[in-house]
């Protein structure tokens, strides 16, 4: 995965709290192989009529080429489905700004190069109001954890280890392989001191 430290794109506001991962992608689409692309499923039931037609007044439908979402607190709560992140990424979304995120969603996001940028409620209100459902250009700087959106310049928060991972495009499996000796030693010790921790009959 390619790392990134700055992004210039268009931001749109999705002024709702608790957009859970069932909203981000309803379960019925999750049997599709990733190679087929998940973008068309993003927020499917929120943005589409039952006929499948896009609702004209939904913020993401009214404008094309959006790459940043500004959403209410507790974004991505609920199910651990990484497909919610795939739907965002495959739609061209690079960052989501919100006052808080579901824990599992945030870590899934980082694993796919998507920035979960935490902002305080006051910043959220300011940004959300300045967008008023009209998109605006945004510049994100991961190194300084700051962004500029129109007249608003503010900071966001992200776990330092996650910021580094996004910037460098690190992959955890590659990183962990450097520690294979430590893992083997740990396993050996645990097996000796806590043999009960292995399924009875196995190994």
């Amino acid at each position, binding site marked *: 995965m390619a790392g990134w430290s700055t992004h210039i794109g268009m931001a749109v506001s999705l002024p709702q709290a608790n957009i*859970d991962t069932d909203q981000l992608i309803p379960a019925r689409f999750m049997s599709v192989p990733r190679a087929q692309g998940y973008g068309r499923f993003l927020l499917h039931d929120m943005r589409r009529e039952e006929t499948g037609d896009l609702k004209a007044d939904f913020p993401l439908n009214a404008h094309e080429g959006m790459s940043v979402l500004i959403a209410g607190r507790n974004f991505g709560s609920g199910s*651990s489905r990484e497909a919610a992140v795939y739907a965002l990424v495959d739609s061209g979304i690079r960052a989501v700004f919100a006052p808080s995120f579901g824990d599992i969603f945030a870590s899934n996001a980082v694993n796919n190069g998507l920035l979960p940028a935490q902002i305080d409620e006051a910043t959220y209100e300011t940004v959300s109001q300045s967008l008023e459902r009209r998109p605006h250009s945004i510049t994100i700087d991961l190194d300084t954890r700051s962004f500029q959106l129109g007249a608003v310049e503010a900071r966001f928060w992200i776990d330092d280890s996650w910021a580094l991972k996004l910037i460098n495009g690190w992959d955890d499996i590659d990183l962990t392989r450097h520690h294979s000796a430590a*893992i083997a030693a740990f396993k050996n010790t645990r097996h000796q001191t806590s043999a009960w921790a292995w399924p009875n009959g196995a190994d």
Partner: protein
Amino acid sequence: MKPISQTLLDKLWAAHEVLRRNDGVSLLWVDRHLVHEGSHHAFAKLKERGLSVCEPNLTFAFVDHYAPTRRGSQSLDPQILRMIQTLRQNADDHGVHLYDLDDPRQGIAHVVGPEEGLTLPGLLINCGDSHTSTHGAFGALAFGIGATEVAHVLATQTIWQRKPKSMRITVEGALGFGVSAKDIALGWIGKLGTDGAQGHAVEYAGAVIRGLSMEGRMTLCNMSIEGGARFGIIAPDETTFAYVKDRPFAPKAGAWEQACAEWRGLCSDKEAPFDREVVLDASEIAPTVTWGTSPEQALPITATVPAADDVMPAKREAVRDALAYMGLKAGHKLEGTAVDQVFIGSCTNGRIEDLREAAHVLRGRQAKIPGQVSPGSAKVKAQAEAEGLDQIFKAAGLDWVASGCSMCVGMNGDLVEKGQRCASSTNRNFKGRQGRGARTHLMSPAMVAAASVTGMLTDVRRLLERRP
């Protein structure tokens, strides 16, 4: 020097920490990894890199999310069949034990793991499912992970994780008549919100928790994620040991004694500091139902549907939106709201005790509305049938079907139709969770049974009076 007091979280974390990086993120050893049909993304990632499963003996596969609950009666939807076939292929390719559809021990990972003795105190358990917190009921460090993390665990048997903050929810006093673990869960989430415990591992403590059965503890830990906590934990005790003993994969003989000795130390030290403490009075918890589209939109069954003005300004829009979706009017009594159908099952409330509680309400009574009972596992189903519970459900007019995640998530085709109101023993009342436009009310299995008898949201205590 006085030894440093540790929380249960501290002890479990230390026991699994392979190393801690300078930035504070730990690499943790994973004792059990549970996978299911939805893990296909992770297996695909493994294949892309030409990797194999690092510890197949610590990996167990379950057909649950897509498991058909009416088996043999109709041919499977090709999409669903493909999901199950893919899991079979992946389990076979990597030498992973699979609990397949025809296995007498098949069922939902979070029900079968404990039943099989795969879930033990002191273990670290991962699964690509947010309700993995269920296993914390045994004093295990158990948490849900995403597909990239699943691939990482498959490849390395470890996981990177920053230690969460600690939070203790103490429930003191005694539970009232007709009040269950589900009501404790909906009660605290209603109070603190769906992000009330975000970033925290919740340890449940207090007299009420000690008095809960393992089934009740699993229900409570299961729902932790609905309050934002990736982890829910309860210190193991004699109730835990009695449940685990002699399970197929549990330690035997000398290993059992050694394990129990270690497990007895798995509790928070008396002086251990928590980042956050919440104390609840059990006598204030009533049978609870959700009225909205978030688990935090929960109230005692005796309450009325709230108006937007009843809540803090930041939550008003969500209330308006939820009322519109749910087709409810502010100010109306919750009790008496007409319900179209019921569902009993899921990893939250699909265990034998849940079915007993529902059957206790239904015995000798008729359901006014249709409904489905799906035991959490084939073993729960067999046990219920041995106890004659299936006859009670069937006599009442409810469908008695096979086990799986079923109508909790609707992936297997068990769906609630648009606009239909379902009283459900499950964990999420999100919009569209049980089907597009479906209206879900979460509650305990006994409350679901009560709703089926009257065809309305009902205070189960009315139907439990004068029951032996």
